[in-house]
C-alpha cells in the first residue's frame, strides 16, 4: 500500500517519567506517516499508552519534542482536538443514552454543521453496521457494538489523525476482521492511524509500519516486513521424549553449536534460534541421539513478526533477568529463568 511520506506526527528524544522515578518513555524518536496505519506494540507497561496519550495531548512529556500536525499537542488547542481523535481503550459511553442520542450529541460537540448531522450519522452507522441498533440504549449493546459506537464517536468530524488504544480488544474474530477492514479503508481514504495492538498477525497483514516498544524505548520501527527481516530468526522447537532434565554439560554443548542462539528450556521442550536450517537440525538431533536422548517431535518455525517481537522485547527483558551460571552463561536459559 502506498503512503504519503510527510509525517503527521514527529516525536524526538521523548521522555516521560512519573512521580516515584518510574520512567515510562526514555528517549523515543518516532515519525507517523500520513495516510498509513502504524501499530504500536510491546509488552504491558512498556509505555505504549503513555506515548499515545502524549500524542493526543492528554499527557505532557517530561522532556523532548512532540509535534502533531505541526502543533504541540500539550497546548490543548481546539484546532488539534478537532483534527486528532483519541479513542481510548475504555469504552467511554453513557449506558443510559441511545446510540442515536450519543452520536447526535457528539456531532454537535465536534461542530458538524447542523444540516449535515443526520447524513453523517447515517453514513457512519451504515459503514460500522450500527444502523438498526441506534434506537436502543447503549446498556443493551453487546461489547462489539459498544466498541463500534465508541469508534464512531471519534470519526464524526473526519479526523486527520486517529489514535486508537487497543481498538480490537474484546472483539470476536468477525468483529476484528470488520474493524481492520474499516481502518484500512479509512487510511486509504485520508486518515493517518496510530494504534496500540497485540494482534501481531493482523499487524503483519494490515499495518504499514510497526513500532515495537519495550521498557520505554523504541526497539524497532519499520514496515512489518523489515522488522521481520532484521529481527526475526528461524526457530527450532524440540520436544524430548523424557521429562528428565538435560544435564548442564549437554545444554552447554547445545548452546555452543555455531548455528544456535538463545536456547531456552521449558520442561521437556527446547527452543532455539537457528541460522541454517538443515545442518543445524541434523547437528542437534545427532548430538541428542549420541547422548541417548530420545526426541518426540521437532518443528521449524519460519521467521515472523511474533518471533521478531519476542526477540526484541525478550532481549530487553533478559537484561533484567537472572542468567544461568557456568560456561553456558547467556547462551541458554531454563524455564522461569529468563523472561520473554
Amino acid at each position, binding site marked *: 500500500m502506498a503512503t504519503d511520506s510527510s509525517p503527521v506526527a514527529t516525536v524526538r528524544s521523548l521522555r516521560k517519567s512519573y512521580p516515584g522515578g518510574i520512567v515510562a518513555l526514555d528517549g523515543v524518536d518516532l515519525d507517523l506517516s500520513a495516510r498509513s496505519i502504524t501499530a504500536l506494540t510491546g509488552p504491558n507497561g512498556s509505555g505504549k499508552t503513555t506515548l499515545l496519550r502524549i500524542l493526543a495531548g492528554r499527557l505532557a512529556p517530561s522532556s523532548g519534542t512532540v509535534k502533531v500536525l505541526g502543533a504541540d499537542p500539550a497546548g490543548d488547542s481546539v484546532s488539534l482536538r478537532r483534527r486528532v481523535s483519541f479513542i*481510548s481503550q475504555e469504552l*467511554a459511553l453513557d449506558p*443510559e*443514552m441511545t446510540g442515536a442520542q450519543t452520536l447526535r*450529541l457528539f456531532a*454537535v460537540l465536534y461542530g458538524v454543521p*447542523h444540516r449535515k448531522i443526520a447524513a453523517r450519522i447515517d453514513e457512519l452507522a451504515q459503514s460500522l453496521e450500527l444502523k438498526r441498533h441506534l434506537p436502543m440504549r447503549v446498556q443493551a449493546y453487546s461489547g462489539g457494538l459498544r466498541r463500534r459506537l465508541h469508534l464512531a464517536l471519534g470519526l464524526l468530524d473526519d479526523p486527520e489523525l486517529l489514535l486508537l488504544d487497543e481498538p480490537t480488544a474484546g472483539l470476536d474474530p468477525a468483529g476484528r476482521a470488520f474493524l481492520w477492514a474499516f481502518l484500512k479503508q479509512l487510511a486509504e481514504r485520508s486518515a493517518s492511524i496510530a494504534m496500540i495492538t497485540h494482534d501481531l498477525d493482523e499487524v503483519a497483514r494490515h499495518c504499514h509500519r510497526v513500532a515495537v516498544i519495550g521498557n520505554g524505548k523504541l526497539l524497532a520501527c519499520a514496515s512489518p516486513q523489515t522488522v521481520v527481516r532484521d529481527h526475526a530468526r528461524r526457530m527450532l522447537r524440540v520436544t524430548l521424549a523424557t521429562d528428565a532434565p538435560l544435564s548442564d554439560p549437554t545444554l552447554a554443548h547445545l548452546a555452543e553449536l555455531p548455528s544456535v542462539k538463545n536456547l531456552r528450556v521449558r520442561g521437556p521442550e527446547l527452543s532455539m534460534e537457528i541460522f541454517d536450517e538443515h545442518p543445524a537440525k541434523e547437528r542437534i538431533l545427532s548430538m541428542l541421539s549420541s547422548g541417548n536422548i530420545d526426541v518426540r517431535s521437532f518443528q521449524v518455525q519460519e521467521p515472523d513478526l511474533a518471533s521478531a517481537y519476542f526477540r526484541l522485547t525478550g532481549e530487553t527483558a533478559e537484561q533484567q533477568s537472572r542468567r544461568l551460571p557456568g560456561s553456558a552463561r547467556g547462551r541458554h536459559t531454563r524455564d522461569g529463568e529468563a523472561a520473554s
Partner: protein
Amino acid sequence: MTAAALRIVSSVYERTWMKALRRPVLLSFSLAQPMIWMLFFGFLFQRYRVERPGGEIRYLDFLLPGICAMTILFGASQSGIELIRDMQTHFLGRLLNTPADRRLLLIGKLTADVSRLLAQATLVFLLGLVVGARVSSSLPGLALAVVALGLFGFAFSALSCAIALLTRAPESMAVFVHLVNMPLLFTSTAFVPSRQMPDFLSSVSQFNPLTLAVGALRGTLLFQEIPSVKLSLLPLALLALVLFGVASAALTRAAQD
C-alpha cells in the same frame, strides 16, 4: 452566542434533563426533603410569631420563601453527582476532548440544573399554598425573585460541580451537605428573621448568599417589594460568576487527567 454555541448548550441541557428524569428517586428525594421540613417546621412553630414593624407575620407565611430557597440549595448540592458518574464511565473525558468550548458544556449542564431546581421550588411553593400559606406578589417582583433564586442555584450547582470534579468521589457530595448546606442554612434568614437571632448570628446572616435569595423572595411574597438589583441580584450574580470560574477551571483540569 453563536448558533453553534447555542446548539452545544442546548444539547448538554437536553442530556442533563434526560438523565435527571431517568432518576426519579433522586429527583423525588430532593423534592420530598424540603416538603417534610416545611410541614414539620410549619406546624411545629405555628404559634411562633415573626415580629415586624407594625405587626406580626404567621410563621408558615414567613417559612415558605425560606423552604423554597432551601429546595434550591439542597438540589444544587446534588449537581456534581452526575459529573462523578460521567467520570466513572469515562464519558466526561470523552466530552471534554471534543473541540467544544468546555465552558459551554458547563453552561448547558448548569442551566438544566437551575431549571430543574426552579421547577422543584415551584412545586414546594404550591404545596405551601395548599397547606395554608398566604402570599401575594407583583409580577415584576416575582420575576426578579426567581432570577435571584436562579443565580443562587447556578452558583451552588457550580460549586457542587467543582467539588465533584476535584474530589471525584460520590462521598464528597454528602460532605458538601454537611459542611456547606447546613451551616449556610442555619446562618441564614431561611427559618428565623435576623432581628430575632443572636447578634453575632444576625451579623453573619447579612453576608450569607442564602439570605439574599430568601430575602428577595420573601420581600416580594410578603411585602410586595421589588428585589433590589444592587443589593440582591448583583452580589448573587458576582458569586455565580466566581463559582462558575472555579468550576470551569476544575473542568479544564479534569480534561488533562
